[in-house]
């Protein structure tokens, strides 16, 4: 137990450090991220350029700090958006049941079967590249895990005595949802959201890597990796550095997410009547 706790604490610290550094980029970045210096192309790490320079002589550290804001903000926004949409749909289907539940669950199944990357490519093809199409592409398929989770938890909680009690004393459905159901969902949903953030961060990077995310001169971690690839054998830091950052952030949120899901799973362990009848 102690060991897991330290891994989680370490993840939180690393994550805070990376996000903090990205947020403070305009003030702490050693160089202008777009500042080119062709005489210093593909330079090795030095005191002036801690992580060396890329193929246009731009400081890799500064570009990492600057590029993080796009990757992290799209992934974070997509996580929040998919979370809200998914939890809303999940609660709606579990509370209304009947044909609404059937319809929403089928839609979920359908979207779950569609390959995420193909859907994203399709949306980018139809709407063009950039921030908003990217966000939409990630949201369209991304809400499904949240809806599944929220639906099954809401079914569970709704079968508990206190929900019936609340209804009997005349609480409105809205009150029941916000006061009795949402608090029970918060833990697992937060755990899921953390895990999804890691996944979405990798997806954002993938689309940017393919040139379908940010447009130059703006950079992000995925497009940095793509640009550095042809020069990998001369300046391996160009692909190592952005990759390590994406990997580290994804790993940290996975550790934190699993911990959160694990911790919050405890109070819901008692099987409800609903759970016993549902296969």
């Amino acid at each position: 137990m102690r060991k897991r706790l330290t891994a989680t604490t370490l993840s939180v610290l690393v994550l805070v450090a990376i996000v903090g550094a990205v947020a403070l980029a305009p003030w702490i970045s050693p160089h202008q991220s777009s500042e080119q210096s062709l005489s210093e192309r593909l330079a090795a790490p030095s005191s002036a350029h801690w992580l060396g320079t890329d193929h246009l002589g731009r400081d890799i550290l500064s570009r990492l700090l600057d590029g993080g804001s796009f990757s992290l903000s799209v992934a974070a926004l997509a996580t929040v958006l998919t979370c809200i949409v998914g939890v809303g749909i999940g609660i709606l289907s579990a509370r209304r049941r009947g044909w609404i539940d059937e319809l929403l669950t089928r839609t979920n199944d359908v979207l779950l079967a569609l390959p995420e990357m193909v859907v994203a490519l399709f949306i980018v093809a139809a709407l063009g590249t950039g921030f908003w199409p990217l966000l939409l592409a990630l949201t369209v398929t991304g809400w499904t895990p949240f809806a599944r989770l929220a639906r099954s938890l809401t079914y569970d909680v709704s079968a508990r005595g206190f929900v019936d009690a609340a209804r009997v004393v005349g609480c409105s459905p809205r009150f029941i949802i916000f006061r009795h159901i949402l608090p029970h969902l918060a833990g697992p949903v937060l755990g899921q959201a953390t895990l999804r953030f890691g996944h979405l961060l990798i997806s954002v990077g993938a689309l940017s890597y393919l040139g379908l995310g940010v447009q130059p001169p703006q950079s992000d971690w995925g497009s940095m990796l793509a640009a550095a690839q042809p020069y990998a054998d001369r300046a391996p830091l160009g692909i190592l550095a952005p990759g390590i950052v994406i990997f580290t952030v994804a790993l940290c949120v996975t550790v934190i997410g699993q911990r959160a899901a694990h911790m919050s799973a405890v109070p819901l362990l008692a099987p409800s009547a609903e759970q016993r009848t549902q296969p």
Partner: protein
Amino acid sequence: MLHFAAKRTTTLVIAVVVASFAVFLVPYLTPGDPVRKIIRSRVAGEVIDDSSVRQLSQSLGLDDPLLVQYIRWLRELISGNMGLSFGSRTPVADQVISAMGVTLSLVTAALVLAVVVSLPLGVLSGLRPGSLTDRAVTTVTQALIAVPEYWAAPLLVLVLAVKLTLLPTAGWTDPTSVVLPALTLALRPIAFFTSAVRTGVLDAAAAAHIQAARARGLSARQTVMRHVLPNSLVPVSTLLAVWFAGLLGGSVIVEVIFAIPGMGKLLFDAVVNSDIPLAQGGVVVVVALAVAVTTLADFIHRFLTKTVGGPVA
């Protein structure tokens, strides 16, 4: 079971219909004159002057309601006519079929690799839970989930192809060129398969028939081979189908990085070059196949949980 089958099949059909309708609408949603785009995908020669455009538009039925056009388009598609690619001016169907073959072999190679790696790892860690081996295997495989393919691929190329020159850097020419892309694609499945095998072994090891096997004198090795391993394969078989569907669409990045002429590369090129008919054909085929395999996975899962009894992770 019958109810389940009917429900699943309906979902499958709806998924394909909805996806194909969205795909059908692409010429209308993208900038530019849809009529000219559709004519270009159906007629081999260049058509420029307005009168012939009008004439062709009429003979192709482009003035009909969208729904009528959709049904006509779908019928053509099912009979194998996906139009002409804007880029190469050759039938889309031919390109899609050859690309699908490439992707299917790549995905199969990746999954075989993943199973070969994760079976021993999962058994090893499942048999001694909490041991150093178990912790090492679990930590490393879980970390694999966080590795982006577009990072793993250049690193593998750099080390194995450029520095050690063991394997080709890219392309799809000789049998060795499948190794690096398959390895890249296998990383994430390895993480999930290993964890599934481990859970399966843990569950099996606690089961009564394993205890009985040990009690009647089977060696530890025999018990594992005959009783534990087959049981732990149940969750893997479901996962295998799920991942097969997932990798069909998930191979885009890997195919682009390694310049493999598969479906992922085809779709990517189609999007980048605004080759609408090619993108349409590719998306419909990938989606149909992925949905079909996912449905199959549901059936396998259902069947196994029914016969084996007890939940499958």
